[in-house]
């Protein structure tokens, strides 16, 4: 195998009328990477994925997946890419086995290879015992693994998973991610969207989209390191934390404050603002509240990145 990236987007754009769903997005995903794609709903994640799967033509820019151009080689892309869409899209009125048979055939598998791949999917998804179960009767976690299994039947080098763990319980989520990591070690490139920060932590690299643009792209540790020191503090008041939330939020220099169990997670604009937080606490009789430095979470990074991107966009939008 050559060193060409599994996925490469070059100023990839898709406009719907005047709306720029995806706006000049560029990135590269090396082979075998678990690439996390984050952003709020409507940020352009699904549109990007649909273009990369050959389902939607780009308005401008280009992209290559597994070495094939998405605009001109859509048929090849479909043979070399697995896609698990946001909605559960297997046939719920077919059994597990019937679904595997159909999707295998749809991907052009037949004979011994099809049978071997079905056996692999049943084993991977732990569905041996449920072969003849109607898909609608499967619990959510098993359904998602079956969907993943069908997306991988044709052994694609690249697989796109659009919010694969929506509505799945934490234990099933964890097992799902074990499968993802296993795929990655075997050389499959996994492109995955999620809203869960726990899941984001398990990705090798993360891309954050906002309003159609790519606003951050790095490994989880480096994203957190980029946040700056002394900007996150944890406050433990004597009273329930909710009682002082409003006072802390309004203190000057506080960018964001959120309840975290019996503590407050506070993001500051400058390290010196910690003193303002103490004053605010004293102001509501919480002199004895514990205040200590904390490390930023990925969520802190994304909230701030998006806030910066918003103001940046506003500046851009103003007439020069």
């Amino acid at each position, binding site marked *: 195998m050559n060193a060409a990236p599994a996925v490469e987007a070059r100023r990839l754009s898709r406009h719907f009328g005047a709306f720029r769903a995806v706006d000049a997005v560029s990135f590269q995903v090396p082979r075998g990477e678990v690439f996390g794609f984050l952003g709020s709903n409507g940020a352009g994640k699904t549109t990007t994925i649909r273009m990369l799967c050959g*389902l939607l033509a780009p308005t401008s820019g280009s992209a290559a997946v597994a070495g094939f151009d998405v605009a001109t080689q859509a048929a090849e892309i479909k043979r070399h890419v697995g896609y698990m869409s946001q*909605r559960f899209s297997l046939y719920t009125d*077919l059994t597990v086995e019937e679904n595997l048979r159909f999707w295998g*055939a*749809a*991907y052009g598998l037949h004979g011994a290879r099809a049978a071997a791949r079905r056996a692999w999917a049943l084993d991977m998804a732990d569905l041996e015992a449920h072969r003849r179960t109607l898909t609608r009767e499967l619990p959510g976690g098993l359904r998602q693994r079956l969907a993943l299994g069908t997306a991988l039947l044709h052994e694609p080098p690249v697989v796109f998973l659009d919010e694969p763990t929506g509505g799945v319980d934490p234990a099933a989520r964890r097992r799902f991610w074990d499968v993802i990591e296993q795929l990655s070690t075997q050389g499959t490139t996994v492109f995955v969207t999620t809203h869960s920060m726990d899941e984001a932590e398990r990705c090798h690299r993360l891309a954050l989209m906002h309003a159609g643009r790519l606003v951050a792209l790095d490994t989880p540790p480096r994203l957190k390191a980029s946040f700056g020191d002394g900007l996150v503090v944890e406050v433990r008041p004597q009273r329930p934390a909710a009682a002082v939330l409003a006072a802390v939020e309004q203190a000057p220099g506080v960018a964001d404050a959120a309840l975290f169990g019996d503590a407050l997670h506070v993001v500051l604009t400058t390290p010196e603002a910690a003193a303002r937080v103490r004053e605010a606490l004293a102001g509501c009789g919480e002199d004895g509240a514990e205040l200590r430095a904390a490390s930023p979470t990925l969520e802190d990074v994304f909230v701030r990145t998006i806030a910066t991107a918003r103001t940046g966009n506003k500046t851009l939008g103003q007439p020069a």
Partner: protein
Amino acid sequence: MIRRTLAVAMKEFMQLRRDWRTALALLGMPTVLLLIYGFALSFDVRHVRLAVVDLDGSRAAREVERAFVRSGFFDLVHRGADSRAIDPLLDSGRAQAALVVPGGFASALAAGRPGSLQFVLDGSDSQMATTVLAYARQIAAAVAPAGEVAPAVAPATPLVWFNPDLASSRFLVPGLVAFILMVTTVIASALAVVREKERGSWESLRATPLVALELLAGKTLPYLVLAAAAAAGSLALAWALFGVPLRGSLLWLALVTLLFLLGGLGWGVFISSIADSQQVAFQAALFSTMLPTLLLSGFIFPISSMPAAIQAITHIVPARYYLAALRGIVLKGTGPEVWGMEMLALGVFAAAVLGVAAVRTMRSL
């Protein structure tokens, strides 16, 4: 290509097997509808309420009366010797027709002169009046060969829609078969594709190497088989219950029916390429098939008596061609030399809608 098409067809069959309601509706509905409408829909008039006014009082007059009752078309509701009874009877609707045997009827017959009978009809239902008058003429001619029925139909323009001597079910049932097949195939195929869009499986299908042709052919194949079975069942039922004969070739009948069904399936797929929800698809399928097939195919109203503009529209109603060929084959036993153009038109329609549907689906794929 063929393997993948069959895979799609197999999948569709398995889903149909589980969704037995849809399969049953597709197979059973034509039969049920044919039974219901086949018996209800008839231009044959029976149980006409008849009043008899016998001013002659002769044996010959009673014979005429008996002939009318025995014919099975009339129910005697009044019998008298006063012609003034007729008006209130007809006005109130208690009688729909009145037979008046004038005085001197028997003696005229005995003298070898034509005896005249008067037949008074409620003409508000012009179609029924026309039919009844024809019956009356036949009966009177049979009893009193020299007699003459003088019609005194209340003001109404008689509109003769069919030959009353022909049992109307034989004429109507083929139309009914065409109508039912058209509506069910279009609805079935439109829903089959839109269902995938609603469920979200369409997106996943699009992400596979399946091409539009494989997908559409695979999806319509099971419905074609079911619709063909339903068509065979309906035509068999039409033969067994309504005496619709098969005078022509079964092979031609099968071929023409197949072309017609393909057109219906194609139209359904075309609708599904526009509609995004099953509800919209269902309504579009219903509206685009039901009224045109009912009104513009020659099923009930002959095309030749429509205004020219409407006649032009009937050219895009495939049931029009199917009906002409179907009636030709089953009733008259004619061959393709008579309805070859109709068969060609059905083929063109099927090819056109399937082609457009495939192109539209391909574009979205």
